[in-house]
């Protein structure tokens, strides 16, 4: 241990500690600009200068990179220190007249202006090198560095050209003390509506709010460590040492008796309907993006803001985007009317904006839903019955200038209306997951023509499928809202448990079978079976039907060229007799 005194106070610290760290332990503030605790000290700005007294005498030293020594006596705010800092700050002011933090610091020492000549009044960079060190030590890329010497010294990219080493991690901007480096939206937007995910956008995140388990995970796509092998700050600061970069996604094989499919939906891609301008016009957002804006832990802290950072004064909500539309999806997505009303309510509450809803039909079946709709009517929401024709930024008059104009037929009034608004929310519908077809094949179940997984029977077996032991829950089976999903999931789990409890599967009574002695092994039936229930027995040269897999459609029976395949309850003989029978009466 090293013993020293700072401003007369004795302290013992471990060897290798810097004066700055020791002073901090005692609670003495030493100003810094080029210092960051996670980076190697560099002593470029020299504002951390202190006076050190030892056996050799008094000496001014930069505290950020000076290691403590036994018997050292340090003064952090002696006259000599103040004088040195004044000079340093004047020099820094001359280097970067526009760096506000430097001027403020100088003002604290009574320095109003610099005595030195300044070359560029706009300059903010004090050449402290924090960014260069961050880029090298954290990002591990050295995409920026110092160029030239003396008064020509600058921070720049190699050869002053854009370079691909930069991984746009933003570390440089993050550490820059003067704001000389910033990460700006190339289009100057204050709020970026698109490119939104449901959760926070950092490399270490809980995947989405209310995720189970509610534990953070590293997004390896975004994490610097996985890009350049550098950084690793999180592991350094994590006290319980919970961070393990070597963990990998694993594929585990689990043998199960029942499977519950709850693969959900995807939202309709609003840019497919070009006339609504999504992705082209500013401030046209989808309902999901509204949810993110409205989220208290979202990027705007729950404020509903337009791209320029201002609050919208009028908002249009267009219903049935991608739903009930012959060009996209014919079905009703079921949830949009209610969530659009919720958005309308929140929008009005949070922004005080005039909210216009454009709907085809208001579909509010469900407990308390109609009452909510009534409440909105009382709140003075504008509800316009008619599918919105388009959204444009083309103004016909002064009122429409700089606004988004929604054109729609108001079928209740019997007129075409143009309504200028600041923001448009598109109530996008629900679609099957893009890989639903693949999943369907994997589990040998069917899809309805819309692509949703097909239940065994709409009334009698709404959570079962045609594959025994595979059950459906939630909107993979069709659009549904949360209560309905919860109810259906419960039913599916109960069905699965019932099957587990029973311990066996009941087979169809009408399965197909093959008279082996008449089968010629022609294999016609094999590719016809959608359930892969038929296999070829090489040594006997016959086809064989696995009755546990057979669902009893009889397609193979109708195709069997020698009549060797037959179907229980529906044999050829029975059907021929049935035909005779139905034709026997007049």
């Amino acid at each position, binding site marked *: 241990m090293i013993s020293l005194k700072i401003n007369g106070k004795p302290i013992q610290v471990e060897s290798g500690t810097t004066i700055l760290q020791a002073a901090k332990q005692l609670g003495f503030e030493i100003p810094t600009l080029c210092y960051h605790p996670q980076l190697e000290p560099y002593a470029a700005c020299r504002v951390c200068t202190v006076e050190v007294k030892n056996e050799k005498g008094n000496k001014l030293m930069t505290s950020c990179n000076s290691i403590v020594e036994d018997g050292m006596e340090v003064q952090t705010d002696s006259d000599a220190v103040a004088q040195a800092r004044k000079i340093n700050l004047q020099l820094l002011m001359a280097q970067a007249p526009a760096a506000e933090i430097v001027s403020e610091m100088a003002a604290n020492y009574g320095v109003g202006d610099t005595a030195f000549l300044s070359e560029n009044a706009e300059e903010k960079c004090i050449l402290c090198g924090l960014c260069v060190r961050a880029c090298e030590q954290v990002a591990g890329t050295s995409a920026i560095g110092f160029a030239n010497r003396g008064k020509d010294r600058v921070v720049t990219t190699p050869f002053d050209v854009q370079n691909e080493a930069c991984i746009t991690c933003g570390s440089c901007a993050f550490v820059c003390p003067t704001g000389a480096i910033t990460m700006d939206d190339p289009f100057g937007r204050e709020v970026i509506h698109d490119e939104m995910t449901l959760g926070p956008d950092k490399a270490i995140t809980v995947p989405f709010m209310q995720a189970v388990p509610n534990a953070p995970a590293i997004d390896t796509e975004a994490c610097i460590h996985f890009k350049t092998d550098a950084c690793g700050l999180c592991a350094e600061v994590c006290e319980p040492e919970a961070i393990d970069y070597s963990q990998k996604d694993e594929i585990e094989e689990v043998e199960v008796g029942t499977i519950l499919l709850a693969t959900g939906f995807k939202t309709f891609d609003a840019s497919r309907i070009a006339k609504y301008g999504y992705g082209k016009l500013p401030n046209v957002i989808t309902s999901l993006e509204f949810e993110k804006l409205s989220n208290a832990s979202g990027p705007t802290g729950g404020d509903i803001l337009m791209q320029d950072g201002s609050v919208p004064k009028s908002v249009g909500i267009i219903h049935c985007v991608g739903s009930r539309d012959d060009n996209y999806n014919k079905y009703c997505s079921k949830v949009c009317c209610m969530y659009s009303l919720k958005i309308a309510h929140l929008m009005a509450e949070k922004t005080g904006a005039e909210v216009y809803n454009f709907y085809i039909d208001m579909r509010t079946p469900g407990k308390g839903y109609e009452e909510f709709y009534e409440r909105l009517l009382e709140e003075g929401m504008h509800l316009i019955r008619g599918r919105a024709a388009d959204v444009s930024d083309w103004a016909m008059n002064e009122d429409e200038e700089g606004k988004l104009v929604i054109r729609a037929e108001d079928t209740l009034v019997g007129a075409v209306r143009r309504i200028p608004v600041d923001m448009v929310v598109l109530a996008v519908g629900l679609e099957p997951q893009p890989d639903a077809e693949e999943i369907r094949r994997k589990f040998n179940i069917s899809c309805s023509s819309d692509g949703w997984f097909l239940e065994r029977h709409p009334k009698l077996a709404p959570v079962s499928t045609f594959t025994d032991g595979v059950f459906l829950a939630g909107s993979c089976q069709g659009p549904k809202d949360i209560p309905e999903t919860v109810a259906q999931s419960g039913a599916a789990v109960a069905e699965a448990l019932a099957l587990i409890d029973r311990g066996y599967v009941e087979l169809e009574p009408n399965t197909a079978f093959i008279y082996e002695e008449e089968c010629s092994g*022609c294999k016609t039936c094999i590719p016809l079976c959608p359930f892969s229930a038929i296999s*070829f027995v090489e040594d006997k040269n016959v086809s064989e039907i696995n009755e546990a897999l057979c669902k009893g459609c009889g397609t193979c029976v*109708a195709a069997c060229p*020698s009549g060797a395949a037959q179907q229980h309850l529906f044999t050829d003989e029975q059907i021929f007799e049935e035909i005779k029978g139905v034709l026997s009466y007049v």
Partner: protein
Amino acid sequence: MSKPKVGFYWCASCGGCEEAVVDLNEGVLDVVEAVDIVFWPVALDFKRSDVEAMEDGEMAVCFINGAIRNSEQKEMVEILRKKSGLIVAFGSCSHMGGIPGLANLHDKESIFNRVYHTVPTIDNPDGTIPQVETSVCGTTVELPEFWDTVRTLNQVIDVDYYLPGCAPPVNLIVGAVTAILEGKLPEKGAVLAPDKALCDECDRRESKPENLCIDEFKRPYQIIIDEEECLLAQGLLCLGSATRAGCDSICVKGNMPCTGCMGPTSRVNDFGAKALSAMASVANANDEKDVKRIIGGIADPVGSFNKYSLPASYLHRKVRK
């Protein structure tokens, strides 16, 4: 003990079935050794009157080939039915109608018109057509009445057994004759051939893929036919999967697809429909347009699926209009 008496007769046929008997080669000597042939127009000089003079049931068995399409054939087979203990329908024509059965796609009138009036080689300035009775020199000359519909033997008389094939394979004939002589016949109405389809005995069966899907039906002149691979897998309309085995797959051995002369197996009633079902089912398309394209590649479906079996099929003849 006298030897059992045996008869052969032919109706609307080509004589190929008689040739099949001759194909027994020296084996025919064993047959002659075992039986007395009492009626066989192609080989022996017995007349109708000789048959009429027989006692009922005098013949142990009579093999009848050919389809039935005129009154004379009907009369003859009815007489033979009476005089024989067993009637064996011999060959595709008496079994299912055979190639002459394709005439059921037409009627008597159009056939007469074609044959006696419009065929390029005809010289018939008076436009006469055959008459059942013609008075000549104070007497009447008779011709058989030509029917509108070709019939199988069992549509005209009761048939005990069937020997399929065009012509019946020699080994099946030997088997049938042996069974009759030894009294080891199956149930009445049986087809005296194996009850499995031809794929069972086809040399190429192992080359047939398990996942056979046909993208295009081909005709023999469109491709160079591989001599080893399953013909259906090559896209050719081979009906072997629907056709009864027993012929030793001679057509396939000759690198030509099976056309179904042996008829269906016992559980199939309508050969053509069943063969059609099997072929249509493996067409590799679900979209209506593609289905039509692939199915359209099967030219002349009636003639292809019912080449030997039209009179025995459910529709059996063209609907008259």
